[in-house]
């Protein structure tokens, strides 16, 4: 076998290598470097080894306590918004019209919240919920419900969750709608002929056909909600107390508030790792689900 040896081909990889190096590898390595050190300002650094990582996983330390508490809040937040947005998105998609001009109208209305910048969403709800001048806050207090997201933990959580549902249910609904539209009419006709009830049509046809888009929806919504920063930061600033302080908010506090670069670097690496692992799990589940659908032969 005579293989042509031409080392010049490496030059073709060089541009990509440089771009990736400057955009990803070097910054990441800087963070890894920081995570092993401590700083007292003045650009003085001291070697700390894996000390920060040990602290992170130890709830008795300040750093570990803050990290694990905010991780818990993040997971709870993601679980709640997924539990609301996914079923709600499915219901919205199912009740949308299939044809006519109303389709376009519905799509535009659904897309609107998705087009609003995140800090604007935060500002809208921050004002909307204020008891003194906000429509929502004023109305709720007017009918006798004592609502104040600045002082009450439950109210703060409710506001952040409702805001996220308002902002992102559309995404789930649009994805589900696309999944529903791809089901050929023959399936519905066959189900009618087979005497299927509305519920049977949903479980036997619509839900299985939406499975893939739903997985994508869950993945996207989990990632986004796990990384949430802007909206709660604008509305509650992480309060009252630390009750709505998510990991990202904690991270910014440590890195920019306290200028503890070492702690912040260690925290962001662990944060990053969690997201990568979750991504990998979703990816594996999705590709397996895809393989299951492929027929052995013939047309699907």
């Amino acid at each position, binding site marked *: 076998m005579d293989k042509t040896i031409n080392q010049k081909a490496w030059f073709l990889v060089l541009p990509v290598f440089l771009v990736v190096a400057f955009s990803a590898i070097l910054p990441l390595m800087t963070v890894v470097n920081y995570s092993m050190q401590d700083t007292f300002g003045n650009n003085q650094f001291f070697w700390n080894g894996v000390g920060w990582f040990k602290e992170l996983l130890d709830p008795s330390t300040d750093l570990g306590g803050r990290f694990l508490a905010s991780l818990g809040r993040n997971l709870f937040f993601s679980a709640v918004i997924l539990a609301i947005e996914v079923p709600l998105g499915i219901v919205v998609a199912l009740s949308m019209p299939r044809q006519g001009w109303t389709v376009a109208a519905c799509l535009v209305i659904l897309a609107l919240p998705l087009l609003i910048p995140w800090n604007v969403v935060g500002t809208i709800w921050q004002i909307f919920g204020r008891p003194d001048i906000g429509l929502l806050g004023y109305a709720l207090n007017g009918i006798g419900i004592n609502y104040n997201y600045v002082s009450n933990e439950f109210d703060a959580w409710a506001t952040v969750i409702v805001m996220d549902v308002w902002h992102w249910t559309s995404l789930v609904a649009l994805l589900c709608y696309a999944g529903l539209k791809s089901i050929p009419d023959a399936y519905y006709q066959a189900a009618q002929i087979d005497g299927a009830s509305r519920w049977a049509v949903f479980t*036997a046809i619509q839900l299985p056909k939406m499975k893939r888009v739903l997985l994508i929806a869950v993945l996207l919504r989990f990632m986004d909600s796990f990384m949430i920063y802007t909206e709660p930061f604008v509305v509650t600033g992480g309060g009252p107390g630390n009750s709505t302080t998510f990991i990202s908010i904690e991270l910014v506090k440590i890195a920019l508030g306290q200028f503890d670069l070492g702690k912040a670097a260690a925290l962001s690496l662990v944060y990053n790792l969690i997201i990568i692992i979750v991504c990998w799990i979703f990816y594996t589940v999705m590709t397996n689900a895809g393989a299951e659908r492929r027929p052995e032969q013939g047309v699907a």
Partner: protein
Amino acid sequence: MARIDLVDLAHSYGGSAADPASYALKPVTMTWRQGGAYALLGPSGCGKTTLLNLISGIVTPSHGKILFDGVDITPLSTQKRNIAQVFQFPVIYDTMTVGQNLAFPLKNRGVPKAEIDARVAEIAGLLDLTPYLQRKATRLTADAKQKISLGRGLVRSNVAAILFDEPLTVIDPELKWQLRSKLKALHRELDLTMIYVTHDQTEALTFADTVVVMHDGRVVQNGTPAELFDKPAHTFVGYFIGSPGMNIVAAEVRGREARIDGHTIALDRSYEHLPSGARIEIGVRPEFVDVALPAPGLLSANIERIDDLGRVRFARVRIGETKFAARVPPGFSVQGEIAGLKFDPSHVHVYADSLLVEGTA
């Protein structure tokens, strides 16, 4: 199991107020007997699927009635009609096994479990699906999926009719034959009314006792395969069925004679009262016109090419500007570019405005 009557049935997707010329299905009155095998044959857009969907109740007709055993079922929903339908693309419930797919229609109707199991086992046996009952239906081939679709119709013991909407479109050619013979066998065994929509004449002619040929929203002929071949009621049936199709040539017809291109051809029957002003044509299948050596008294034609189909050869010729096909008799060798055409008078039909005219003896 039922006799199906269509009474003045018509449909327009534009609603009942639409212009009759635009109807997807023009008014048709017809009776399909219990246990018959019928094929609706026609090109795409001829209204055959519309007719099928009217019978299954997926589409509600804008005019007319449908009777099952004399009972008007026009206003009934698909669920209540006791119809089974197999679609062009296999419809399979993805999450279920083959067995669960077959059981689905019975489960929805609240049939007791023991009865469902017995019925599913029986139908799976008929369709050779027994080994697959526990497998996920999505993993099977297209022809097995079509069998499952059919099986979901057959499990219901009381179906009035089974409708097929071009069910073999996605099946591999060699499996088409198998599946079609399976259908024929089931039809004989189960005494079911079957209605089969297709644009493939071979499928229609081999499957059905009665073929309903449709063209442009209209039923143009309703008869046995032999009738469609021997006596097409419409020029469309003539050239749509048969390969090559019937020759249709403009002619002047007087009494027992037709004149084509200045040449006279004898006819078996007399046509004295042709509608005046109508477009008169004669139609004759290539099987009943022989190529011969040019001779006085024979219509002469220019030979363009010879198609050898193995058992039979057809000559593609031209009479003036009109294309024409004729049989080359066994042992006859074609010489030169001009040939004479010998017509079999008993198979020459006369058409006025595309409709068959019956002559008098």
